[in-house]
């Protein structure tokens, strides 16, 4: 009980400071509206359906891009680890694109896929692909040779080994890579939505900010942060459930 209370203490302190600083005119209230004003604004955004409409739009685009990256990334990563010829071809491409800031691709995606959902999904997909490929590749490469040989000696075909041994064997690394991708997906989606478009949480933030509705803008920013936080928490639970075979 005490430990839990202590854990939330910094949050409570932050909230108090946030509320008091503008009220006591320590900071400009238009630069940092009091937390209660932000909360009021959040409530009206919720009642008006702005958060629901933009939130659902954002989450759908995020899911499409992320799931696409997970499926394609795992497939490519396993193929690279399993087939040397594929490895020779793909590894230099992966190495070259790895250090590139993923957000630099957003304008390219807008150019190719337009101002709507297409460019958002593509931005998330492109940004999340590499971490999934690399973690899958490393996971599949790290599997003990003897485990693969054991499966082969028990009568598994090469394809069965790939599906039934390499893939589950690489799962701890894959899941860790997907967690990175999940965090990246929020960054890329909001960045893309801030740039162009007429829906999504990023759009809501820039729309309210441009209109001078700063308490609303903060409410939208906090909402996105909460989305990200809860998505990560849920994912951690899922990860723990998937890896319960580990000590």
């Amino acid at each position, binding site marked *: 009980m005490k430990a839990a209370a202590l854990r939330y203490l910094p949050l409570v302190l932050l909230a108090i400071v946030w509320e008091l600083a503008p009220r006591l005119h320590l900071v400009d209230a238009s630069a940092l509206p009091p937390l209660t004003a932000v909360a009021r604004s959040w409530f009206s955004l919720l009642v008006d359906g702005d958060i629901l409409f933009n939130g659902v739009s954002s989450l759908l685009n995020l899911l499409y891009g992320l799931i696409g990256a997970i499926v394609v990334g795992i497939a490519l990563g396993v193929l690279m680890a399993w087939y040397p010829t594929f490895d020779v071809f793909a590894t230099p491409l992966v190495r070259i694109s790895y250090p590139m800031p993923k957000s630099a691709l957003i304008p390219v995606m807008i150019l190719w896929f337009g101002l709507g959902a297409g460019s958002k999904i593509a931005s998330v997909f492109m940004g999340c692909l590499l971490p999934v490929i690399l973690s899958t590749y490393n996971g599949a490469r790290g599997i003990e040779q*003897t485990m693969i040989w*054991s499966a*082969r*000696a*028990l009568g598994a075909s090469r394809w069965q080994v790939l599906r039934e*041994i390499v893939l589950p*064997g690489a799962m701890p690394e894959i899941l860790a890579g997907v967690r990175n991708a999940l965090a990246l997906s929020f960054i890329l989606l909001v960045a893309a939505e801030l740039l162009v478009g007429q829906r999504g949480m990023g759009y809501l933030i820039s729309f309210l900010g441009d209109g001078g509705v700063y308490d609303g803008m903060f409410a939208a920013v906090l909402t996105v942060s909460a989305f990200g936080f809860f998505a990560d928490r849920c994912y951690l639970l899922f990860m723990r459930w998937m890896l319960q075979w580990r000590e």
Partner: protein
Amino acid sequence: MGMGGSGIIFDEVCHTYRPRRGRPVLALDKISLDVRDREFLALLGPSGCGKSTLLYLLGGFMPIESGSITTHGKPVTGPGPDRGIVFQSFALFPWKTVRQNVLYGLEKQGMPRAEREQRTKELLELVHLSAFADSYPSQLSGGMKQRVAIARTLAVDPGILLMDEPFGALDAQTRALMHEELLAIMQRSPKTVVFVTHDVREAVYLADRVAVMSARPGRIKEIVSTEKPAGAGSEFLQTPEFAEKVEHLWGLVRDEAIRAQDAAH
């Protein structure tokens, strides 16, 4: 022995180890060796002599570059359920429970569900792990893990059992118990066993014959019969015959171990 030949025949098997960097090294030099049906043969030699490589070639895990290996007259071209293998590192599937590990090979063999559940149950009884059927490998001790690996391999009933220093990672007491358990299992369902080890006592105690290998490049230096009186148990370890055999084999291995050590420096 008929024309087809029973057991395993190694005929002038060579293997060259090719590291990514550096020069290729001849690891096995014209190994010729016959293993009789239902014989327990130990491959004894210093580390790096290629004894495990020879076992992997027999398992079909690596291509045979020159020479040939046949089992019951058929050339080895790849892995198969007629040759089961047990590794020092256990090589269990950690995301599967003990039962699922043992079931895996039976599923690959296409055994009907009820039958494979029954067979798995029997095998877990054989290795005294029925109580741990639903545990994951990470929850087991080293000795228990190796018993699961043995059960998994025996489940598909291979005619030939390959063992790659299977008890090398276990403490001395566990190893002694595993020796007795393995001999008991072999008595119940005899198999042709090729057992790789660098432990002289282990080789003498378990095997019918011991093939001593030289330091790199691996050659068969001498083959020593270590057949025990029928039904001999662990009391055999106390007899002068046992001590004599160990002494003789140690003499053969010692020179090679020294050579292997010098080569490593």
